[in-house]
């Protein structure tokens, strides 16, 4: 019995060790992949046309879903905030509460999570299919720098798009909060907008936090999703199942990374 337990424990530790090594190795490969993607973004040729198309796919086509989600998130903030603040007789600071929450947390985090689901998964699947059908090999065989041509434009587009999307999310949230707090619940609109103005002008770090987080999250979303697509041939299953598994992994890893890095960045930027 004791030998059996001992053997089980050894197997468990061995499995844990193997998993840890695999994770660290994968993290290292992601680091190399990301550095190539960054290097590709600053090296010639600078692909304005492709970046423009990617901004439309990643950014412009995400606008409506971001605005809609931001609006309803703002409504929830207005509703919850109003009822909570009324208990303390502080409904006058509703506007400040809404804008601080939106700019510092919900704007960048929710936008990044939505971007992962909408554009990140598509990006991963696209690169995965290109890898499986030898299209990436074909690029390399033509002497074309794959990162510069394929990955870096998506990264640049993400870095440009997500901060704008986060601001759109916040703006929509402001009007959602206004509708729920002021129109539906009779909070004072003057206090609501004045409070917002004073919060933003009085603390420039608030806007900075939103933009810095957005840029960082964009880097995480694009590199993690593109990396998983690029490594689709390492999946234990091949073909469509491999792409499906890689896409699922990309969305999970990207989403969890956003939340982990959100905490770490908040600690640094607050």
């Amino acid at each position, binding site marked *: 019995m004791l030998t059996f337990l001992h053997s089980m424990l050894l197997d468990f530790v061995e499995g844990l060790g193997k998993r840890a090594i695999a994770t660290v190795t994968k993290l290292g490969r992601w680091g190399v992949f990301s550095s190539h993607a960054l290097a590709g973004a600053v090296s010639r040729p600078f692909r304005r046309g492709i970046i423009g198309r990617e901004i439309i796919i990643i950014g412009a086509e995400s606008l409506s879903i971001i605005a809609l989600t931001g609006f309803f998130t703002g409504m929830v903030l207005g509703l919850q905030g109003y009822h909570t603040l009324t208990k303390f007789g502080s409904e006058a600071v509703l506007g400040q509460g809404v804008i601080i929450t939106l700019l510092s947390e919900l704007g960048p985090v929710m936008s990044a999570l939505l971007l992962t689901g909408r554009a990140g998964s598509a990006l991963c699947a696209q690169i995965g299919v290109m890898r499986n*059908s*030898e*299209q990436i*090999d*074909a690029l*390399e*065989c*033509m*002497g*074309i*720098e794959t990162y510069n*041509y394929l990955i870096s434009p998506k990264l640049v587009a993400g870095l440009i798009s997500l901060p704008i999307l986060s601001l759109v999310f916040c703006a929509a949230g402001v009007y959602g909060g206004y509708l729920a707090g002021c129109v539906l619940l009779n909070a004072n609109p003057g206090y609501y907008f004045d409070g917002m103005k004073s919060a933003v002008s009085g603390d420039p770090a608030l806007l900075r936090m939103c933009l810095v987080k957005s840029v960082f999250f964009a880097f995480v979303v694009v590199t993690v999703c593109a990396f998983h697509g690029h490594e689709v041939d390492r999946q234990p299953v091949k073909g469509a199942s491999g792409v499906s598994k890689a896409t699922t992994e990309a969305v999970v890893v990207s989403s969890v990374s956003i939340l982990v890095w959100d905490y770490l960045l908040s600690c640094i930027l607050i």
Partner: protein
Amino acid sequence: MNELNVIQLVNIRKRFGQQWVHDQLNLSVPAGKTTVVVGPSGVGKSVMIKYILGMLKPDSGQVLVNGHDVVTMSRTELREMRSHLGVLFQGVALFDSMTVLDNVELPLREKTTLSDAEVRQKSVDKLALVGISASDGSKFPAQLSGGMQKRVGLARALQHDPSIVLFDEPTTGLDPRTTHRIYDLLADTQHRLGYTAVIVSHDIPNVFRIADYVAILEDKKIQACVPAEEVRRADSPWARHFVETDDGGPAA
């Protein structure tokens, strides 16, 4: 290096996991000729193509292309070397988000400073060379038949006038009639442009008719590389070797 051999694989060893794929594999490819590498499925024919392209490194041995060892090349050197090579992939690997014309124009747009009009003209000419009309240039690859996709893939591979063209199972998935047409096309373009062709295939004996040399890859190494006439001659031992086999393996 022998000046006539533009590609040389020297004492290549490679294993995936515990399984040896190649062990002491040697092959010399003469310039301006068509060398066909045949062997059973799964023997590592496509892996050989990947060595030559520098997309996969052998565990040991040399891969010499025009006298330069691909194994030790930097990323920049590899890009430069690959720009002199053309490749027709097994699955053609046309970019499905681009039109036929965009696919064929891509190598020139990326690697030359030609004007838009020159790129367009050269691309239309290359498509004409492989029997694709300009009116098909606006179609997407998914709108073409398998044989037409192969033709477009060949046009793209030949776009920058490479001195070496690699073909990975060029007739896989095609019906016999289209297969013959593709072989005719390969022979015709090779004759006209004079490139060195390396074709890996298990389409035996059809592929022999366009070969100058036939290399037999079996049991982890090249067993022989013989002039194609020898495998085409009915009374030769190599012809008997392939008689009635359709997977490239030895006759039972």
